[in-house]
Structure formats: C-alpha cells, structure tokens
C-alpha cells in the first residue's frame, strides 16, 4: 500500500526529528535518499547512549532510518555539491534540520533551491524557529522541554519539575513536519508549486501543551497544581492517577469517586458526593484511595472495577506490554534486514491503510551504501 509512490524525498537531517519524519514518508510509500556527509554520516549513527550497536550503527539510528537509501557526499567538495544539486532538481521533498543558516552556506537554502526546482517541498526543522533570541541555542529535546513549561506538569508536587523521559518533543516535531510536507504536496497537486514548511521543537512543545496552556491563558494565569501523590495530570481531579497495589500498580482514569468507593469497598470515598470536591479535595481523596489500594493485588481490584466498566488498567512494564496477547495481535514488531544479511527487530509504522499494515523488510542503510547506484540512476557520475 503505497500512498506516496513515486515521490522522491531527500533527507539531509540528523538525529531524530528530521530522520523520523523522512522515515514516516518512506513508510507511506515514498523513496527516501538520505544525503550524508562522507565522514561518519548522520551523527546519530554513533550516538550509542545505551552502548548498543548493530552492524556498526546505533540502535537509535536503526530505529529512525529504516527503508532509506544512503548517499554519501561532502558538500564542501564542488563535485559532490554539483551532484547533490542535480539530485535536488529531481526531488519532490527535501528535509533538513541544520542550525539556521547552514544550508545557505552551501547554496542549498530554500530561496536558492527553489530556483532550481520550483515544485520542491522544502522542510526545515529548527530548535526554536529561525529568528529570535533562542535561535542559536542547542535544539535538544530536554532543553526545549525545560524552557516550555512541560516539566511542571509531570510528577508530584514535592518533586522538582520532571521532564518526559522520552524525546516526545522530537517525535511531535517530526509529526508536524510530515503533516506540513503532505499538506504542501496536496497544494502542489492543485497549483503545481512547491513550498517551504517550517517547524521547530519549541512550537511542537507548546502545541503539545495546547489544552492546558489555553486554559492558563484564559484563567487569569493560574499555575498547574501537581498532586501530592499519584500525580498523572495536574488539571484532572481524583481519582486520576497511578496507585501502588500489594503486588504492582493500578491506573485509574476519570470517574465517579463515590462509585469507585462502592466498587472497591472503600467507604470513606463515598463521602465525596459532590463532583467539585473531586477537584477541590483531590489530594485528600487520592490519599484515602492510595492507602486502600495497597491492601490487595492489582488483579483483585481489576476484577471489581472492569465488570462495572470503570476506567482502570494494570500498569505494565514495557516487557509485559509487548508480551501481552492484545499487543502481539497487532504485529507491531517487524524484522528488517540489511543487504549484508544483518537482521534487526523494530516496530512498524502504526498507520494502516485499507486494512493493510504499512511496512517492509528494509533496514537502515550503511553509510554511502547507495551512492554508486544513485549516481548511475540519476546520471550524476561524470
């Protein structure tokens, strides 16, 4: 199922937000050629925070670069630059995430490239936008989180601000970029002209908070108040949160505190009939609940709550989650191979089209793996 068949994407980006966007386009059917510097390529090839490498490249690199070709070039070399420009002339999409101004140094900024290929959709990802006092700050997920206010929404009131442990901002920046590129391609179908799509990590971090930030902008500037215990959302009332049980953890989403008290046999909870008390006395209620839930194992609580359709779930570890029948049935894990036979397991694109899962068996390329073939195919070799 190739929605984006025959589209050619040139991926100049590194690390996560850009490469992940390009990979999504590849999953959706586009052909992606990763243009990498000859020396070392995408810096994330060596970014082994877990010290795990497969076939010479980090696992994070593999995860973000499935099903791409690699074209190695030294943009400072006039011959290589000429070849890259000829590739750009034939491309539909270009993605880059260098610091503002870097592409311009090679004459590959949008204004220049547009002259060569007016149908090109050019996506540029920055940390904080191309202007303003933050433009030269390192565009790193955790730092963007720290500046955006996100860490004040996580954890409990007695904790310092807690950032997300995953690079969620990178991932959403990537999603925004894909959306912008596809929308521009739709417009190109109508007008014949390409366009410039710009996204940034900071704008993604703000968009992620749009619900609660909109509330803050209109409530006289009140600050989020994290729970004393079982904090899961600074703006939601009791019982919303994760609670320790005798043998594990139980998550409770929105629901009636009184009904919960009845189902769990926790009489003190039934003394909060007024829904506004679930907000105003959130932490008191959650403390009652927390001490009650510690007395029995998770399974017993679920057996009381699930038949009543109360919103609850066991809190699994990632291993437990992936081993669960409900997850395995989705076949989210795929096996990909490199040309040399190295096989890896990773997850597939989570979008299905016409009932078909998207995915194929092609692993991330080794550096420059396709340079010669691309030179031949596009007539770039002299």
């Amino acid at each position: 199922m190739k929605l984006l068949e025959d589209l050619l994407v040139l991926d100049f980006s590194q690390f996560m937000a850009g490469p992940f966007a390009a990979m999504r386009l590849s999953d959706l059917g586009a052909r992606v050629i990763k243009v990498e510097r000859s020396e070392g390529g995408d810096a994330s090839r060596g970014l082994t925070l877990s010290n795990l490498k497969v076939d010479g490249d980090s696992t994070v690199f593999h995860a973000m670069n499935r099903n791409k070709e690699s074209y190695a070039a030294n943009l400072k070399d006039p011959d290589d630059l000429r070849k890259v420009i000829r590739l750009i002339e034939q491309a539909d999409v270009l993605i880059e995430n260098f610091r503002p101004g870097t592409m311009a140094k090679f004459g590959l900024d949008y204004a220049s490239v547009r002259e060569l290929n007016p149908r090109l959709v050019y996506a540029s990802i920055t940390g904080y936008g191309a202007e303003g006092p933050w433009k030269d700050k390192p565009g790193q997920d955790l730092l963007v989180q720290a500046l955006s206010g996100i860490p004040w929404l996580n954890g409990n009131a007695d904790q310092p601000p807690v950032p997300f442990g995953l690079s969620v901002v990178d991932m959403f920046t990537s999603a925004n970029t894909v959306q912008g590129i596809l929308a521009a391609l739709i417009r190109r179908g109508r007008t014949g002209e390409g366009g410039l799509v710009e996204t940034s990590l900071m704008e993604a971090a703000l968009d992620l908070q749009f619900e609660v930030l909109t509330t803050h902008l209109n409530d006289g500037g009140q600050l989020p108040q994290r729970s004393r215990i079982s904090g899961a959302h600074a703006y939601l009332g009791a019982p919303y949160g994760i609670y320790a049980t005798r043998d594990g953890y139980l998550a409770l989403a929105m629901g009636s505190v009184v009904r919960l008290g009845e189902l769990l046999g926790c009489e003190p909870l039934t003394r909060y009939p007024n829904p506004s008390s679930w907000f105003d006395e959130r932490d008191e209620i959650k403390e009652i609940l927390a001490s009650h839930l510690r007395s029995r194992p998770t399974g017993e609580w679920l057996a009381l709550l699930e038949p009543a359709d109360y919103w609850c779930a066991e809190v699994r570890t990632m291993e437990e989650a992936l081993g669960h029948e409900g997850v395995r049935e989705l076949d989210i894990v795929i096996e990909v191979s490199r040309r040399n036979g190295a096989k890896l397991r990773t997850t597939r694109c989570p979008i299905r089209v016409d009932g078909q899962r998207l995915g194929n068996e092609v692993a991330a390329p080794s550096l420059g793996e396709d340079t010669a073939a691309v030179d031949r195919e596009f007539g770039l070799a002299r």
Partner: protein
Amino acid sequence: MADKPLSGITVVDFSQFLSGPYTGLRLADLGARVVKIENPRGGDLCRRLYISNVEIEGDSSLFHAINRNKMSFCVDLKDERERLPLVRLLEKADVVIQNFRPGVIERLGFGYEDVRRINPRIVYGSISGYGTEGPLAEAPGQDLLVQSLTGLARLGEEDGEAPMAYGLAVADMSAGALLAEGILAALVRRSIAGQGALVEVSLLESTLDLMQEALADAPVGALAAKPDGLPAEAPVAGAAGAFRAESGPLPAERPDLAPAEMFRAESGSESAKAPDVAQAEIYRPESGFESVKAPDVAPAGIYRTGDSYIAIGRGAPLFALGRAIGWFDAEERVLAPAGSRAAQPGIRERLQSKFGERTTAEWLASIEQAGIPCSEVLDWPNLLKHDGFRALEMIQTVRRASGATLAALRCPIRIDGKRLTSATGSPGIGEHNTAILRELEGR
C-alpha cells in the same frame, strides 16, 4: 494566507474528546473546512469535560482549545429525516474522522463501507483504542490507561523511579497526529490516482511508536515474546536490544565499559543541528581519566539550584561539566567527589548537591561557556514573557460568533514563511446547520 494548503477540502468529523478532534484541528489550520457532527443531547462530550473553572459560554476551556476554527452540524443520527442532509454532506466531503469504540459507527450506518457507497473518493480516518479486533478491542481507549498498558508509565523504573504517567495526553495526541499524517498521504494519492482510502490508527500503536527510542534500547526479551504471552528467556548477553542481530555476519557490538543503565532514562536523541555535533569527541578528556574509554556522559535531567532549577541536556560530557562546575582544579585534579564518573552510583545525587551551591544564572554562565547544552527551567509565566517565546507569535485571539473571545495557541507549522492562523473560535452546537443546509440546497 489566502490559499492555505488544504483549501477546498471538506472534513466531516464525528469524533469527540481529543484524539480525533486534534486531527480535525490540524486539518482546519492547514486550510480545510471541518464540520463537527454533534448530537442534540449536548454534542461533543468534551464540551463538559472541565479541567478548571474556566467556562466560556457553557463550554469547557478544553473544548474551546480543541475545536476552534470548526463548524458544528447538529444531527440526531437516530432520526432518519435528519440523516438525509448528512448523507448529502458526505457526498461532497473529502475526509471523514471518527473515534467511537469499534463497531459503533457501523451500527450508526456511517462506517467506511457505508460512506464509501455514498462517496467512493472518501478518505476515511478512524481511531480506536487498541485496534478493532483482539482481546483489547473493547477496552476503554483512554489516554492514561493506554500509557499504563504500553509500559510508558514505567520506563523510568530501571533508575529506581516509581511509575509516572506523562502529565499530558500524549497517547491521544500521538494518535491524532498520526491520523492526520495518514489522511494527508491518502489525499496526496487521491489527487494523483483518484481513489479514496481507509486510514486506521490506534492509541496503543501510536504510543508504542512514541516509545521507539526506549524500544530500541529494550532488553532482547522485550520484542521476542513467546506465543504464550510471556517474555522470552532472559536476555542474551551482548545482544542488541530490540534490534537483535540474529544471523547477520556482524555480531552486535557492545563496548565493555559503561553499563547500559547509566544512560537508560535519558536514552534518546539530540536534535542538535550542526553537523559538527559529535560532542563526545570534542570533550574527550585530554588528561586525567585516561581509563575512561566509554562515553563519559553526565546524567541528563533537571537539578535544583540555589534559587531555582537548571536542565542539563542529553549527552553532556561529564568531564567537561565537572570542570565547568569546579570539580577539578587547574591541573585537573579532582577537587570534589572522588572519581566523578556517571558510571558510579550516586552521581546524580552528587551533581544535585553541587548545583545547590549557586544560582541558576551563575551556573548557566559557566556551563554555557563550556559549550555544554543546558538551560534554565521556565514555568509558564516566565515563558510567556520571554523574548524567545514572543518571537514565535504563538498566541492568537479567536472569536466566537457571539463575540466572545479566547486566547489560543496557533498551529505549530509554518508554510512559505507564514504562520497558519485563524481567528475563528469554536462553534456552538448546531451553529452552522442553517448555513450548511442552505449550501446543500444550492442556495
């Protein structure tokens, strides 16, 4: 922008709460006309989902944030006569969005097959909690529950942290973002090949997608579940996480030093932009610590300072950080905590106690100068008055038909250098019935 990228596209949106409506909002901001289909018994349930005492014209602030720039068409789907204009609207529509529990929209008669008969070119986007079949299909597709069932909430556990949910609806938003991607890709194909499509995503799969990085580092057992549902045998020594190198000629590489756990929590990426980013190289200690061969990286995270907090970025080299905060003297002899290597337990605590000695501004001055990624930690009031935030022009004022106004964020994407904004607020239930009916009648 006169000609937004999706101008001319009509979206019929049956969805409620956040995931589907977030897709609709993005398509609206990109230029589509989005018509919410709402029931006469209160409409989208999100109108009454309060997270604060902010209520504007009877609707919650959440509803306003999610549904600005949309129209509302009120239809009782159980009333045959009322369904007729909806069918005619679907004939002219380009996209449908729905996020009911599996089977519900089919019972209402507006499943993909039904709508496709009405309009073969339709791109139909559907969000479920856990897929449409299998043992979880009927489970409630609620954000916190999905975070709990996927393991997201327990990712910090290896570092001794209690389970912690992400304080934002990342499962909903991830699914909504993915659905937008799938719908847009299908519209690209339709513009070339003329055919519509069914696009499906689930909260569960979208959340696992978000966990990509953690999965890449997962112990080998995690992705190799046995048919009985239990994780496979104990991880094989030297195996490469999720990416098990099974039969490749090159075995997985694993440096001897630097235990994996030291980076686990913050494993992930840097979005640094420059091609010269290989900081690990730049900061490789020239003297002292010659025994440290593996990456010598300080635990990333947020630390308390003398007056507030400081964030140290991922991949910050511990040696250079130690030098910048005065752990070493000019001869690079260790002045403070002996042998401060991230590999040693308690390094986070020791960094914490050091950071407590001075103010954030003082630390930033010395740490930034050393070229180490770091930043202050802003709360919203300080963010909103920061020049960096102001330069983004992220806030727009939206207006309802009644004249009521609301400050909202704009779409985070720019096209051709222009921000995508729209001054249209959220609709009242059925606010656009008259206009839409008139349009369908061709008047």
